């Protein structure tokens, strides 16, 4: 097959040029796409999904009971006290539940080593919704 050098050179250069021009277009928009994605806040959405999925009915009931046990939600407490109270009230697995509360940041440690009920935890909403 006979080769047409002009056609080949022109088409070759066209491919290189259009390819790099397309690359330039994509590159100039990467940060814009990232900005949009970051503002969609997929992170929050994902967290909400995990919380909803990981809460069992039993865990919700037990959390409510523990909250009921702590007379004043504003008062900070030591973890063993909370566990003891839970045990005395017939909770079967207070350690697992406490671990769960810490992971969901429903209870958080302060500088003194005591824990406090964290009103800002997104998990609260889900507990009381259910």
């Amino acid at each position: 097959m006979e080769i047409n050098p002009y056609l080949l050179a022109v088409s070759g250069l066209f491919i290189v040029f259009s390819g790099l021009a397309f690359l330039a277009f994509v590159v100039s928009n990467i940060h814009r796409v990232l900005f949009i994605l970051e503002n969609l806040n997929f992170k929050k959405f994902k967290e909400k999904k995990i919380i909803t999925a990981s809460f069992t009915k039993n865990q919700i009931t037990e959390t409510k009971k523990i909250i009921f046990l702590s007379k004043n939600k504003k008062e900070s407490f030591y973890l063993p006290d909370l566990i003891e109270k839970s045990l005395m009230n017939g909770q079967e697995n207070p350690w697992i539940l406490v671990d769960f509360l810490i992971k969901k940041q429903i209870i958080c440690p302060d500088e003194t080593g005591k824990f406090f009920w964290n009103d800002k935890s997104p998990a609260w909403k889900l507990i009381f919704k259910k």
Partner: protein
Amino acid sequence: MLLIAFFFLYLGVFKKYEPLLLVPISFGMIIGNLPSPASMSLGVYSEGSVFYYLYQGVSQGIYPPLIFIGIGAMADFSYILSRPILILLGAAAQAGIFITFIGAYFLGFAPTESAAIGIIGGADGPTAIFLTSKLAPDLIGPIAIAAYSYMALVPVIQPPIMKLLTSKKERLITMSSDFREISKKEKVIFPVTALVICCLIAPGALPLLGMLFFGNLLKEAEVTNRLAEAAKGPLIDIVTILLGISVGASTQADVFLTKKSVTIFILGVVSFAIATMCGILFAKLMNMFLKEKINPLIGAAGVSAVPDSARVVQMVAAKENPGNYILMHAMAPNISGVIGSAIAAGVMWSIIGNF
């Protein structure tokens, strides 16, 4: 050939023209051209010799992609991420490849040989060797020597062309140093995105660009620092030594000193000059449409001799105004030139390789 080898050695050692390339190549030329008994197989073309096996990395196109990993690990793509429009200069400079292809074809070279000769204009040694190993393996010696010599001679070849095509007023143009800050995410996304785009356009460029962007990802990911350090240090050094020595040793006088080789050298320098011209002229064309003017000298960095070409651009600009820093701006077309010449090689291989 020995005289040429000594001359190259002199240029490398005393004139410091690309010593990392010219010293191994010139020493390889001495090795390849010393007389040896015909009964013993010693040279690169004698099957079974040590040099024969080292040369397989060149003739099979193995060394160039390995060098590209190192280049990728050293390259900083943030210049093109902050000024993407300058990528076009890297594309414009590739015109030299295709124009020389036409010239070589009409001088009687086969289409495959013409493509391999044209790629010298990309001023990218590894790309030239890679494409030649695929299209015209017989010409690897002269094309590799021409490509690496012209890469080394960037400070000699480019400045007169730059001065010829630009006015003093143009050379004095200053460019804003206000670069956009590039996030880590962008730097990580870029090599993956660019690889997909480039290899959809020119699948033949995959061995080179795949390694280039992989090397860059190793660097930008920041979790593979050991691998990145190995790629830009020991790996690229070892491969450069092996490539330089074996390419040099392939220039045996009976194979190398032919009319064809001389023509290749002439066409190579023409290709390189045209590439430089096209980059500068395209920068001037862009200035007709851009609000914020660019210094047309940076168009010359569109050839992919990284970072020498960008350094030469800075040198020429600084001669007119020592306070004019355009090195960072020149790095953008320079790095996109590497991508452009690899795409051009891929295009040539895909089209002509099928004829």
